[in-house]
């Protein structure tokens, strides 16, 4: 909160325009001070990235430290250690259900960074995904199945935790839209099918189809054609023909046309997930909102803070002549643009067979949707804090002008937006599928830019088992 821009004696105001003066933030935010982590990963310098994470461990960012440590260790191929870090992260996230009164009190007088970071739904739901790949790499297929069963539960649990923090019905409704993920159901279904659990696989595929259809507006991702093939393959051969036909009648677009079928020749299935780019992060802006002479009439600080939330929203204007007493300056988070990866799709080929990836999920859009749902509550807390700081400074100033200035200065210096997020997550996920004959295969993997040009390639030798699955994941920064 800044009081330097007090309007002396009040200024007549009619049809006050949206009072959102955005200024560059003075202090480095969590994102700004940790962006080097991304550079280190782009350079493949896992050790430096881990050292950086370790150097900043502890405090209220402990969950992020564990998530990012688990993530970097995964890319570094240290799967056991990655699982340990992720397990610790999951345990910590569960324990953070219990709110700390002292942290909440501190956030009221300092900033939201004093509260332990609890993780966002799209972040916590990615932990089972990475752990599943860790276990597959370690050859522990049973443990990978456990992660498949956890995946969608983790998302629902995280959304519940988010809902707990939100008061306004419209914001709660927006948060509920985050509760499902077509990709996580689909990925779990593939893992179930790889284990011969066809009933579980079909149910997961069906849930995936429903989630993709319901969440298309949220993520901008349509149901992948490969999911339709999975539904048909498992559904029609395992006794779910009527369910498949119901789905086909309700959503014909789910199922690929007959000419698009790869056939169900004997052999195994290659599944490759491309994780590309960097997830959209939160940035900090300084927002100036007027305190009006009529504001003293609010019955409670909560009501006043909610009115300031409205006042900070686009399109707000005062409906009658009022005087501005103060300009409250607060630091609030806003969403920044995601960083698109150099490669946004992948083409895999072996022998005469080839397949190109399809979009499967958009974590950045999930991050934005989470922020939109939380924004009202974040602003409410911010204005509650700003009013508290204002009251403290005013009370001190009444006693002594210098004391008032000091309290005001402290308020300004401690004002920071909470931009914390799992920085190393990708922007988008895409999945390529290829059916190959059993035996050793040389799989060519080509990474494609948005224009379809090959920007990199590699060859991987894989062992395809009849009826089995080979799971691979790759990252393009």
């Amino acid at each position, binding site marked *: 909160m800044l009081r330097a821009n007090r309007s002396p004696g009040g200024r007549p105001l009619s049809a006050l325009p949206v009072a959102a003066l955005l200024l560059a933030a003075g202090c480095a935010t969590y994102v700004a001070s940790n962006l080097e982590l991304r550079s280190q990963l782009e350079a493949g310098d896992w050790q430096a990235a881990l050292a950086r994470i370790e150097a900043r461990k502890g405090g209220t960012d402990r969950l992020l430290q564990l998530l990012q440590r688990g993530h970097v260790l995964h890319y570094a191929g240290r799967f056991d250690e990655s699982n340990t870090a992720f397990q610790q992260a999951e345990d910590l996230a569960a324990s953070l259900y219990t709110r700390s009164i002292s942290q909440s009190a501190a956030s009221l007088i300092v900033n939201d960074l004093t509260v332990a970071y609890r993780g966002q739904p799209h972040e916590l739901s990615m932990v089972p995904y990475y752990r599943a790949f860790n276990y597959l790499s370690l050859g522990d297929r049973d443990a990978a199945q456990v992660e498949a069963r956890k995946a969608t539960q983790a998302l629902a649990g995280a959304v519940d935790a988010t809902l707990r923090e939100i008061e306004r019905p419209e914001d709660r409704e927006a948060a509920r839209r985050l509760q499902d993920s077509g990709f996580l159901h689909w990925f779990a279904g593939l893992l179930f099918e790889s284990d011969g659990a066809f009933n579980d696989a079909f149910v997961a595929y069906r849930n995936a189809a429903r989630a993709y259809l319901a969440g298309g507006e949220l993520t901008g991702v349509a149901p992948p054609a490969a999911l339709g093939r999975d539904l048909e393959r498992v559904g029609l051969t395992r006794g779910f023909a009527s369910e498949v036909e119901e789905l086909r009648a309700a959503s014909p677009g789910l199922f690929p046309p007959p000419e698009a079928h790869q056939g169900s020749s004997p052999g195994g299935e290659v599944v490759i997930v491309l994780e590309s780019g960097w997830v959209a992060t939160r940035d900090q802006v300084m927002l100036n909102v007027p305190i009006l002479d009529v504001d003293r009439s609010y019955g409670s600080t909560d009501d006043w803070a909610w009115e300031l939330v409205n006042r900070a929203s686009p399109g707000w204007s005062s409906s009658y002549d009022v005087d501005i007493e103060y300009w409250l300056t607060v630091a609030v988070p806003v969403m920044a643009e995601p960083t698109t990866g150099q490669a946004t799709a992948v083409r895999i080929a072996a022998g005469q067979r080839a397949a190109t990836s399809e979009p499967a999920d958009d974590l950045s859009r999930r991050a934005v949707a989470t922020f939109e749902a939380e924004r009202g509550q974040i602003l409410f807390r911010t204005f509650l804090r700003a009013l508290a700081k204002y*009251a403290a400074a005013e009370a001190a100033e009444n006693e002594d002008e210098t004391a008032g200035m000091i309290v005001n200065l402290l308020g300004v210096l401690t004002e920071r937006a909470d931009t914390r997020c799992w920085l190393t997550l990708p922007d988008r996920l895409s999945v390529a599928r290829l059916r190959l004959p059993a035996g050793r295969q040389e799989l060519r993997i080509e990474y494609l830019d948005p224009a379809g040009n090959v920007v990199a390639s590699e060859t991987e030798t894989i062992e395809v088992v009849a009826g089995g699955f080979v799971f691979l994941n790759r990252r393009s920064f």
Partner: protein
Amino acid sequence: MRAPTIGIAIALAALAAAAGCTSTTVTRVPTEEQIDLSGRWNDTDSQQAAQALVDQSVATPWVDDFLLAKGEKPTLIIGTIRNKTPEHIAVKTLVADLERSFINSGRVTVVASSEEREDVRAEREDQQQFASDETVKAWGLERGADYMLIGEVNSQFDAEDGKEVKYYQVDCYLVDLESNVKVWTGFTKIKKFVGRSKYKP
């Protein structure tokens, strides 16, 4: 919000800072003591499930039927117990608990698992070269199991508003290794309520 509220907030923050100055403490406890921290499947669940299943199993007629028919105790091998829950369950611990409970029941003979047999055979092979003639153990005298115990752990979890009910069911089957006939099936259930405080200092 006015100055008194700020004062309270500052006091609370100071209290929290003081409360945060704790160090790690370690206390040894009896291994049979039941300690639940996270609500996840733990050693107590494993022991209780194993004991319940073995009690059920040895109390059913298949043991006496075998004794009557063959004149000796049946020989068991503990096969695979599959974890079908969304939790990482130490299945090996459950298998060990089942083995121990079966052995301690005195009603059956338990033979080593396939993994353990590899070690035993390696040792026996070693004996052929290095042990004395009087003590070397012969090949081909292993006891074959009559029955294999297989099973799985399933679960249902329900959570709302920080409270969680966890329901585990362990199903086991005893299969005749010669005929594939299931001579016994049993299950045991474990239900837990996990409550989380909404607030802490």
